[in-house]
C-alpha cells in the first residue's frame, strides 16, 4: 500500500531514535570501531543515515497505521493525517465503500418574454454563482416547456411583465456548497445557442439541503455494522445494504413483525372478529433528497393501480352497449356482496372463484387481499366467467344479451368512445373527477391545476394563468360548486390513498380528485397537472428490495418514506439597538429550515428550540417574541391533520405539551373506527387509535419544512 510521501511525518525524536538505534546496531556488529560522539565514524556511518533511516521508519509506521481499522481509527481521531484513501482501501476488504454525497435540488422559475413552446437542451447550465452550476432534472432530452406551462407574471398595477415556467433543477455536483437561499441565477449557458425569449431565471424557495461525501469518521462508525450478512433481513443489514448500494439513501428505519407500526400484515377479511397479524412483511422507511415532479392525467380516465392488485372485473359489452344495459347493480340480477364470480378460463389458476366485495353499475370488485391472478386486459386474453352463489359452478345469474346464457366471455364495448374501457379482470380503476398518480411517495403537493378548462368552466378560470387552480386540500370530497362570482381560493382537491398501509411507497395508490359534490364528473376529460414533492431516485432502492435476486424470498419487503409533518411559523422579532443592518430574513429562513429538517428525530422540537436557533442565526436580533407553530400531518390515507402548538411539536395531545388539533371535525373517521363507536377524531385517545390503525408513530413521521414556510416579522 503506497504511502504518499507528503503523508509521512518524521519528528526530531525519530532522528534521535534513529541515531541511537544505528549506534547500537553498528557498535554491536563492528565492535572494534568507535561510533561515539565526536568520532568521524559516527559522522559518516550514523549521522549521514539518520535522515534516511528516520524517513523509512516513518513510512513503515505509516504502512502499519494503514493496515488495520483499529490503528486507522486512532489516527483519524488525531486528525493529523489525510487517511481517506487508506481507509477506503482497507474497508474495501469488506466491500464497504464510502458513500457519495447527494445533490441539492430546486424548482427554478424561468422568465420568458413570449408565450411560446420552449425547447431546452438538458446540457444547459444554470450558473447560480461562478462555481456552482445546476442542470435540468429530467432524463429526456430536450426538455420541452409547452406554452400552456408558461404563466403570465403581472406587476402590482396589473401590467404584464413576462411569462414564468417552473423547471426542476439538480446540482452539478454533490455537497452542501450547492445549498442556496432564494435568489437569481447569474448566467444560463447553452451549447446550442440561446434559449429563445429567456430573460432570466431565479428560485423563490431555497434549494434542498445536500450532503458532502461521507467523512472518514462516519464511514468508520458505519463500517461497524457492515460485517452483517448482506441481505435485507434485519434492521442492521437493511441499513448497511441500502446505504452501501444507494448513496441517495441517507438513513433507514425498518419496522417488522410485532411492532405497533406494522399494520400491513394485519388480516381482517379472514373472518368476522378476527384480526390477525400474519407476519412476513416489513417496511423500511428511508430518508432521501426531495425532487419536485409533475404528472398529467385525463380526469375520469382509467389508471392502473400502482400496487398491481387486479381486483376489478368489467364486461362493457353487456353493461354499456345494450339498449337496456345489463347493470351489475340491477336488482333483477340478484347480485349481492358475498356472491361469487367464477373465472372459468383465461387467467392463471382458472377456473377459480372470487368473492365479490363491492358492486358498481359497470364493475365488480373482489378483495384486494385475494385478487385475480392476472389482468386479462393487459395480457390481452379473453376471460370466460359466470356469476352465482351455489358451488361448484357459481352460474346462477343470467348474463344477457342472450336469454338463458349463464356463461360468457367478457368483451370490450363496440360503442364509439367507449372502446377504451378495459374488459375482463383489470387493475385499471376509474372514477369521476379523479386521476391516479404514479406509484411513488407523495411528500407534499405544491400545485394542482386543470390546464385545459372548457368554456363552460370559465367562472373557475384564474385570469392570471388561464387555467383552473385548486389551492385548497380537503379531507373529504370537495364540496358543492361555489356560487358566482367564484372565490377562486375556495376551489379544492382531495388526495385519497386507497391503500394507506402501503402509502409513501412505490405501491401507493394515490387518487387525486377535483370536481364538486353532485358534479363529480364536472372536469372529466380535461387534463389535470399535479406538481408534488417526492424522493429523488426512490425507485432505485425500492425496486432493489423487491427485485427477484435481492429480495428476501419468504417476505414482502416494502420501501417507504416517513409520513411528513410540514411545519410553518412566523417568528416575530425585535432588532438590537446596536444593530447596524436589518435582518436578512431570506437567509435566516433558509438556515431555520435546514435546522428543522436536520433536527434529531429522537429529540423534541419545540418553540424554545426555534427561538434559540433564530437568535443564533441572526446576531442582529435583540428579542424573539412568543409565537405559535402550525404543522400539518399528511396521514397515510391522504388526509391532513392540522395542529398548532405553543410548546412542543408532537402528534400526540398529551397534557401540558401545548398541542392543539385544529381540524378534528374535518378528519374522515375510518369505517373500522366507526364500528367501534368513534364518530370524531378530536381527543388524544381517538387520535392515537387513528394513528395505530395506519401505523403512525413518532418513529414513522418526519418533521419537515421549507424556507418559504418559516418567515419572520419585525416588531417593536
Amino acid at each position: 500500500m503506497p504511502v504518499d510521501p507528503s503523508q509521512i511525518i518524521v519528528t526530531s525524536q525519530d532522528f534521535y531514535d534513529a541515531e541511537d538505534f544505528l549506534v547500537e546496531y553498528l557498535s554491536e556488529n563492528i565492535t572494534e570501531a568507535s561510533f561515539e560522539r565526536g568520532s568521524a565514524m559516527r559522522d559518516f556511518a550514523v549521522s549521514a543515515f539518520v535522515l534516511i533511516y528516520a524517513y523509512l521508519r516513518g513510512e513503515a509506521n505509516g504502512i502499519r497505521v494503514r493496515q488495520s481499522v483499529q490503528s486507522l481509527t486512532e489516527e483519524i481521531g488525531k486528525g493529523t493525517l489525510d487517511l481517506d484513501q487508506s481507509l477506503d482501501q482497507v474497508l474495501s476488504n469488506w466491500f464497504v465503500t464510502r458513500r457519495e454525497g447527494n445533490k441539492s435540488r430546486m424548482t427554478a422559475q424561468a422568465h420568458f418574454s413570449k408565450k411560446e413552446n420552449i425547447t431546452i437542451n438538458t446540457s444547459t447550465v444554470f450558473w447560480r454563482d461562478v462555481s456552482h452550476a445546476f442542470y435540468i432534472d429530467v432524463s429526456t432530452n430536450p426538455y420541452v416547456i409547452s406554452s400552456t406551462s408558461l404563466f403570465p407574471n403581472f406587476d402590482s398595477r396589473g401590467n404584464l411583465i413576462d411569462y414564468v415556467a417552473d423547471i426542476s433543477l439538480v446540482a452539478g455536483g454533490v455537497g452542501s456548497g450547492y445549498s442556496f437561499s432564494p435568489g437569481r441565477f447569474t448566467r444560463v449557458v447553452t451549447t446550442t445557442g440561446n434559449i429563445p425569449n429567456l430573460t432570466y431565471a431565479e428560485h423563490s424557495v431555497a434549494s434542498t439541503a445536500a450532503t458532502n461525501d461521507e467523512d472518514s469518521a462516519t464511514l468508520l462508525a458505519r463500517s461497524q455494522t457492515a460485517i452483517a450478512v448482506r441481505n435485507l433481513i434485519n434492521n442492521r443489514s437493511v441499513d448497511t445494504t441500502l446505504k452501501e448500494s444507494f448513496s441517495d439513501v441517507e438513513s433507514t428505519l425498518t419496522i417488522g413483525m410485532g411492532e405497533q407500526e406494522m399494520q400491513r400484515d394485519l388480516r381482517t377479511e379472514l373472518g368476522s372478529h378476527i384480526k390477525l397479524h400474519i407476519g412476513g412483511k416489513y417496511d423500511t422507511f428511508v430518508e432521501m433528497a426531495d425532487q419536485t415532479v409533475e404528472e398529467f392525467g385525463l380526469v375520469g380516465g382509467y389508471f392502473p393501480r400502482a400496487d398491481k392488485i387486479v381486483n376489478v372485473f368489467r364486461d362493457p359489452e353487456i353493461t354499456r352497449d345494450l339498449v337496456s344495459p345489463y347493470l351489475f347493480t340491477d336488482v333483477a340480477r340478484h347480485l349481492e356482496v358475498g356472491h361469487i364470480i367464477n373465472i372459468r378460463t383465461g387467467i392463471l389458476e382458472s377456473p377459480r372463484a372470487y368473492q365479490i366485495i363491492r358492486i358498481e353499475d359497470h364493475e365488480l370488485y373482489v378483495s384486494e387481499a385475494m385478487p385475480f391472478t392476472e389482468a386479462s386486459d393487459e395480457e390481452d386474453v379473453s376471460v370466460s366467467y359466470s356469476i352465482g352463489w351455489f358451488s361448484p359452478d357459481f352460474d346462477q345469474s343470467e348474463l344477457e344479451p342472450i336469454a338463458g346464457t349463464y356463461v360468457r366471455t367478457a368483451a370490450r364495448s363496440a360503442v364509439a368512445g367507449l372502446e377504451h374501457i378495459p374488459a375482463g379482470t383489470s387493475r385499471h380503476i376509474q372514477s369521476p373527477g379523479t386521476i391516479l398518480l404514479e406509484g411513488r411517495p407523495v411528500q407534499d403537493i405544491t400545485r394542482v391545476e386543470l390546464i385545459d378548462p372548457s368554456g363552460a368552466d370559465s367562472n373557475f378560470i384564474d385570469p392570471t394563468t388561464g387555467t383552473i387552480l385548486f389551492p385548497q386540500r380537503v379531507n373529504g370530497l370537495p364540496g358543492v360548486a361555489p356560487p358566482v362570482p367564484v372565490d377562486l381560493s375556495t376551489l379544492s382537491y382531495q388526495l385519497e390513498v386507497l391503500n394507506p398501509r402501503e402509502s409513501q411507497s412505490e405501491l401507493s395508490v394515490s387518487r387525486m380528485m377535483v370536481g364538486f359534490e353532485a358534479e363529480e364528473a364536472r372536469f372529466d376529460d380535461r387534463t389535470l397537472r399535479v406538481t408534488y414533492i417526492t424522493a429523488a431516485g426512490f425507485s432505485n432502492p425500492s425496486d432493489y428490495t423487491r427485485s427477484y435476486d435481492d429480495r428476501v424470498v419468504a417476505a414482502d419487503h416494502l420501501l417507504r418514506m416517513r409520513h411528513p409533518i410540514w411545519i410553518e411559523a412566523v417568528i416575530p422579532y425585535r432588532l438590537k439597538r446596536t444593530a447596524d443592518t436589518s435582518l436578512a430574513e431570506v437567509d435566516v429562513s433558509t438556515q431555520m429550515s435546514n435546522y428543522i429538517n436536520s433536527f434529531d428525530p429522537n429529540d423534541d422540537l419545540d418553540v424554545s428550540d426555534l427561538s434559540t436557533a433564530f437568535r443564533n442565526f441572526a446576531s442582529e436580533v435583540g428579542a424573539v417574541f412568543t409565537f405559535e407553530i402550525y404543522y400539518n400531518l399528511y396521514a397515510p390515507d391522504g388526509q391532513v391533520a392540522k395542529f398548532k402548538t405553543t410548546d412542543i411539536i408532537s402528534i400526540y395531545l398529551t397534557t401540558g405539551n401545548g398541542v392543539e388539533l385544529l381540524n378534528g371535525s374535518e378528519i374522515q373517521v375510518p369505517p373500522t373506527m366507526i364500528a367501534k363507536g368513534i364518530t370524531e377524531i378530536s381527543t388524544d385517545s381517538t387520535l392515537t387509535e387513528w394513528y395505530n390503525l395506519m401505523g403512525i408513530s413518532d418513529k414513522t413521521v418526519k418533521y419537515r419544512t421549507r424556507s418559504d414556510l418559516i418567515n419572520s416579522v419585525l416588531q417593536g
Partner: protein
Amino acid sequence: MTWDIHFQPIPEDQVRGFKTFTFGFRAALVVTGYQMLINRWFKTFFTPKGSELLHSGDGTTLAGLIGGNIGSQESARDLAIRAVEETNEQIKAQDVAGGFEEQESLESAVITRMAPQSEGGLAIWVTIKNVAGKQLEIHLIDLATR
C-alpha cells in the same frame, strides 16, 4: 581499543573553497589512541556551532571565522581562547559518555602560542594532553608539531 577513521588537513597550497580536511590521497586509514583523541578534539574545534543536525550545540564559534579576514586580532584571540574552552568541555563530556580509554581521553588542551600572520590571519598552537600523560604542541590548522 577502538579505532576511528583518520583524516588530515589538506596542505595549505591545495586548499580550494571551504574543504580543509581529507581522508588522504589513497585509501583511508584507521586511527587509534592519542591520535584519535587529537582528531576528535580537532574536529570538534573546527565544527561551526549549529552545523550538526542532531546536536546543534556541538562545535565552536571560532570555526565560523575560517575563510574570513580577521579585523581585530584582540577579538580573534578572545574567540580562540573561548573556542578551546568549549572544545575541552565537549570532549570531556564525550569521554564520560563514550567510555574512552586513557589514551583516547582528554586531560587538557591549552593554547601555548598565538601569532598574528601578515596576511591578516592568526596562527595558534595548542598543547593537547591525554589522561595517560602524553602531550604534544600542535599548530592549528595544519596539525604540524614543529
